[in-house]
């Protein structure tokens, strides 16, 4: 099957963002089904990084990198964080003969990431099936702090209208799929984000004992910073520190934290996150706002870690009451502290949560579940490309 696959954030190997994880999952799925897509991405990297990317995806039909720096119309729109301009940037790609030729190649399936890539459809073959990975209701994220909610509605109106250009739109969060359906996007489907659980079995604690009691992983995104600060001020400093608990914080969130405490290790970016997971007893996710799916929570669960988080921290992770300790941190900081302390003290309790979390991820977010759901969506669009026998699919997947 001929596939044109578009990803707008540059090289997605190695995976350094949630969107890259999603893209990597798509391509793993295609490979497991024996499909070889033409990968098109906007923005490259260093020659070495591009070489590594091309080598990693050498099995693909082709890799095309759109270079905005060569084209002012693309660059000047893509440099401004604005929904309209991102759309315009993609309209400019279509207007560039070099890339129009790539997009116009014969294809059975055109698979785009993010709705602002929709103008590319002007160039792709009209008989191809069209699938959009929305990743999130992305137009909401373009709204800047001082902008009016009416502008948000304008963005949503355009986003959901553009959904109509696709045969299927994949949503990574059940709530957002329901929201899209409410707004008339009848082709929106929830597909749980596939998580690679291959490493999960190595994620248990070190036999010699954990170095850290608590672990928080986060980027410098506002909600992460706000959550970490709140947790330190209301839970850790007044209620857990005195019990001798040690807290590790990983990721660029450390750059924006202003508290200094010997009980808190701000590790910043680390080379091997899996190792830090293994060195920790409990993962916390004190999140109070956010959209989409909480990737850090999924990753913690896939690592087999007991997770203590808020209702916001399990957004996009349905029916996980037995697998995650879900608490309203702000309503009762003392109760939160007690629950965390109890988990840190009881190894058997932690192991119980670990096993349940891994089981949950395998059932709901593992490659088999993901592949099955993708098959359900793509088979009606591409009947000739899919083997009808489930047994054949299993074989393909195993391959």
């Amino acid at each position, binding site marked *: 099957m001929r596939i044109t696959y578009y990803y707008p954030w540059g090289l997605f190997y190695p995976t350094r963002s949630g969107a890259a994880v999603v893209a990597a999952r798509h391509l793993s799925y295609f490979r497991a089904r024996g499909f070889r897509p033409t990968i098109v991405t906007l923005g490259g990297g260093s020659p070495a990084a591009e070489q590594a990317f091309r080598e990693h995806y050498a099995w693909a039909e082709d890799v095309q990198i759109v270079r905005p720096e060569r084209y*002012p*119309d693309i*660059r*000047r*729109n893509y*440099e*401004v*964080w*604005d*929904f*309209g*301009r991102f*759309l*315009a940037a993609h*309209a*400019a790609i*279509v*207007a560039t003969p070099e890339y129009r030729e790539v997009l116009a190649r014969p294809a059975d399936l055109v698979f785009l990431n993010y709705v602002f890539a*929709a*103008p590319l*459809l*002007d160039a792709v073959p*009209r008989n191809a099936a069209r699938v959009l990975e929305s990743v999130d209701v992305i137009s909401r994220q373009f709204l*800047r702090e*001082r*902008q*009016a*909610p*009416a*502008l*948000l*509605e*304008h963005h*949503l*109106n*355009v986003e959901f*209208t*553009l959904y*109509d*250009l696709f045969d299927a739109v994949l949503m990574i969060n059940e709530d957002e799929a329901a*929201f899209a359906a*409410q*707004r*008339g996007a009848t082709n929106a489907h929830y597909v749980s984000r596939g998580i690679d659980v291959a490493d999960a079995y190595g994620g248990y604690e070190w036999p010699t004992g954990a170095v850290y009691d608590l672990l928080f992983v986060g980027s410098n995104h506002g909600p992460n910073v706000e959550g970490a600060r709140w947790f330190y001020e209301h839970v850790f400093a007044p209620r857990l520190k005195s019990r001798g608990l040690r807290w590790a914080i990983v990721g660029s969130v450390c750059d924006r934290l202003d508290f200094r405490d010997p009980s808190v290790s701000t590790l910043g970016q680390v080379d091997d996150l899996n190792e830090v997971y293994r060195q920790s007893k409990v993962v916390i996710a004190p999140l109070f706002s956010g959209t989409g799916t909480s990737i850090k929570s999924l990753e913690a669960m896939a690592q087999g870690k007991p997770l203590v988080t808020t209702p916001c921290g399990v957004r996009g992770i349905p029916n996980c009451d037995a697998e995650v300790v879900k608490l309203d941190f702000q309503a009762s900081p003392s109760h939160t502290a007690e629950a965390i302390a109890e988990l840190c003290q009881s190894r058997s309790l932690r192991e119980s949560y670990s096993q349940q979390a891994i089981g949950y991820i395998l059932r709901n977010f593992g490659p088999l579940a993901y592949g099955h759901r993708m098959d359900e969506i793509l088979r009606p669009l591409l009947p000739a490309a899919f083997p009808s026998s489930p047994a054949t699919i299993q074989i393909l997947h195993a391959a």
Partner: protein
Amino acid sequence: MKQKLVILNNGLKDHRGHYFETSISIAEAARQQGFAPILATHSTCPIDLLPDWLPAYPLFTTDHWMTSPPAPDPDVQGAALSPYRDQAISFDEARAGETSLGAWLDGRFDLPRLDAAIDTATELAAIPGDLTYEGWRGRVLELTHGGLDWLRRGIQVMQKLGWCGERLQFYFAPPCVDVGFRRLGNTLKTPLLLVIPRILQPRFYPRLEQRLAEVLQGRGGAASSGSDGGLDGLSPHAGTRRLMETARARLTEHKLGHEFDHARRFLRDLERLLAMADIGPRDHVLLGTAHYREMLAIDWLTCRLGADRSPSFHLEFRHPLFHADPSEAAVEASESLRAQRGVFALQRERADERRIWLYTDTDELRDEYELLTALRFEVLPIPFRAELITPRARSTHGPLTLVFLGDARDEKGFPWLPDLIDQLMDDFVRPGRVRFRLQATLGTPAYNPKSAPALARLRLFGTQQVELVGLDGPLPPEKYYELVSSADVVLLPYDRNRYRAASSGTLAEAIGGGRPAIVPADSWMSTQLAPGAGETFHDFESFVAGTRRVIENFAQYRAAADAHRRTWLQRHSPAALVAAIRAKQGTAPSRNRNAA
């Protein structure tokens, strides 16, 4: 693409009043009837009040009350804001590949033309937000933005101070000062306010305008190339400009120039709405609380858009014009009414050119407006969600619940309630035959000076006897309907003069819920009550007597109210309102009332 029905409620800022309720109920009905509903509200309305399925555009900086300065302009940078741009490219054309998606998007975003050579650095620096300014141009722009920001804030503070000062005088100045100045003003009004300006106006203003025009033309032509409603200048569009100038002349003649400004601002916001929500000729816009000033703005807009591009506008006038029975003498005696007549006459002159339908929600109001305007007004059903009012199977034991609903306002008779309770105390309240649940949301005490002391008196009663609800603010729908549902009897001690012709959402809910009600006599409300389904009153004594009769004979009243319920609901519902709007599809408005 579904047809859109825009529910425009520029007074909607929170749960207060019936604006929220009517908007949501119409939106639900529109959705059920195959429309794509859209809600447009005041810019301060928090969108988290609204359901996810309902697209909301909080864009309007003015409300219909005009009791506070316009809200700051919402930042909608990036969106295409003019409905006059060529949006002939439909999405269906783009989807079919007949035109490019880029062209379709170009009508929805204010984007630089892709084929234009633009200096990227300058362009980026001109956009405030997450940008880094570079070089001296960047610094100049940064300083300019900062200065403008402070200037804007300063102007807002001054506007607020001026507005507050005007109102504070009513609090602090002793009554004799107010009376004295009024009498002095009345004595001097004729020479000062009427004669002198009328001598000066024709001499002074035309010269000033001419001079300004010369200056502006000398600097390169029209100062503004923006929309008609731009607040910087009048329209470059000849037809609209003529209409606006005529309206301004008529309003300033009656000292109502500020209403002209209001209309221009409303027009600007309406233009933005139509552009952002992509409203076209197949769509409908329902303005649920209209006044002549908003009608003016809509008239200007439809003039410029033309009938082939303009949506259908449905304007519902719900505020009464006359304090007593309508008459020509009352019109002649009122400067405001004469001004309105002049403005409506403009509308009448172009009967066939617009797609604007005019409505009221009561027969009495229709008669008032038709008398004033000689235009045809139709009567729309009253929308509310009757299904949210649970039927109340009253047991024979326990006290009857008497309920007051809505904001605590003087005109709604809230100040009568403590005295009513006192009067009923010995016979009904203390023996446990009656209890009160009263909505006590005192939103605007400045305009309701009697309600605040009444609320203080009500707080003195025991909570078993008198429960006050909504003290913290407007009730959200679920709590409001819980209060309506808990009622055995609904009290409406409204001012008859104010509510002679106007509808009452509260009464609509009482009748729709099969609850007996006590309403002012000789009013629209009294005409809606079925015989035996409630009582009417002329004054406080008859209000108390009526309430006593309903309590003592509750079963009979309740039976009559129940029987009337079904008939009422067949006529008044959100679905009936939406159907009435849909029925206008493909028809032309009939302007002259004699043409009906």
